[in-house]
């Protein structure tokens, strides 16, 4: 750790160059290969692999077959930053009116699904005697977001690194499956952009995968999925707080000394995703007429590349072997809850949205 702390910013940048080049290569390859694949009926009709999805898949393929040398690792850490930057720029595609129109119902559906999934997962965990920290990590990951929510809940429930790695892997693997399965479901059921965007925004929980699945279907669906994604992220601190309280209660009920002091205000303040304010600022600028149509188009190109690079980084850091670490029962439990949630989301979307 000492060496890491001593590194200068310049050294960090130099160390990141090989990984950054790899990320760019994968993103550019996905960008050019995706339209080429669309020429074949298999990919055009059944297995829709747009560049976003392809970037994730190509990254995973490289990471889990040939492997990635340590020299590339420092440059692969920017997936979250790139994806979030893309989300801020995405604000240029919305107006306040549009945001309120889609965002109002979105917040309601998200709240129901988020808290519902978290509560059900904790209940299932208790029934199947899954240790509280792992159950809380899974509940957090499967309801809010695989990576950031799992990391957020971990200290509050004293989760081990293995619990965290496992929860993140289950969520990412389910999202990966969803990337391949959701688009054909959308086509078969003739879902509208609003319906499909909501289906992705509720059914998938990793930001990159939600956006990749949404934009992979259509731009309109991607924009709706983007709003659901932001709504979900906003709820993160509140779900983490609820899970921390539930986990502490379960530990106390089972007679373990698990009483972790919970500072409610601190959890909400520390975990609130302030980058969402950047997104809202861009939406406000756009609503005030700050950007013309060609400028919005260029901003969209920037957004696409932020996402493409971010998704390539995510693929390049996804280890399929993490799934083996915690056994089959948790894997099935995680997939069962995530699958049930996606199925219910589909029914709700078909019943209540046009």
């Amino acid at each position: 750790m000492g060496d890491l702390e001593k590194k200068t910013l310049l050294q960090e940048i130099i160390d990141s160059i090989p990984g950054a080049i790899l990320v760019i290569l994968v993103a550019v390859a996905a960008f050019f290969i995706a339209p080429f694949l669309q020429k074949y009926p298999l990919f055009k009709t059944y297995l829709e692999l747009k560049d976003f999805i392809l970037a994730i898949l190509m990254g995973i393929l490289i990471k889990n077959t040939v492997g990635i040398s340590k020299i590339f690792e420092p440059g692969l850490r920017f997936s979250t930053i790139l994806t979030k930057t893309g989300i801020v720029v995405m604000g240029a595609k919305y107006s306040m009116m549009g945001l309120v129109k889609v965002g109002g119902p979105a917040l309601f559906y998200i709240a129901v699904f988020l808290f519902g999934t978290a509560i059900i997962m904790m209940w299932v965990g208790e029934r199947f005697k899954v240790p509280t920290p792992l159950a809380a990590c899974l509940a957090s990951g499967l309801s809010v977001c695989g990576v950031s929510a799992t990391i957020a809940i971990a200290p509050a429930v004293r989760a081990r690194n293995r619990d965290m790695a496992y929860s993140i892997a289950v969520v990412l693997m389910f999202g990966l499956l969803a990337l391949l399965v959701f688009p054909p479901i959308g086509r078969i059921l003739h879902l509208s952009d609003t319906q499909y965007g909501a289906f992705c925004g509720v059914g998938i929980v990793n930001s990159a995968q939600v956006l990749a699945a949404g934009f992979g279907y259509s731009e309109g669906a991607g924009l709706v999925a983007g709003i659901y994604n932001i709504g979900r992220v906003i709820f993160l601190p509140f779900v983490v707080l609820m899970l921390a309280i539930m986990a502490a209660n379960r530990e106390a009920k089972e007679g373990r000394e698990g009483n972790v002091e919970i500072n409610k205000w601190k959890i909400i303040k520390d975990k609130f995703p302030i980058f969402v304010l950047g997104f809202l600022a861009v939406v406000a600028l756009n609503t005030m007429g700050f950007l013309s149509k060609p400028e919005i188009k260029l901003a969209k190109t920037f957004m696409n590349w932020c996402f493409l690079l971010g998704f390539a980084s995510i693929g390049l850091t996804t280890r399929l072997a993490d799934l083996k670490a915690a056994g089959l029962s948790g894997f099935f439990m995680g997939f069962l809850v995530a699958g049930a949630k996606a199925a219910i989301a589909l029914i709700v979307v078909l019943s209540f949205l046009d």
Partner: protein
Amino acid sequence: MLNWFKNLSKSRKQDLAVIIMGMLLVFLAKLLK
């Protein structure tokens, strides 16, 4: 000001960087078109 920034958690610094980069890209789009 500098102390305030130094005391921020890593995720907060990351969020600030994201907001700045995102806004810069939006302004760049405005400048280039």
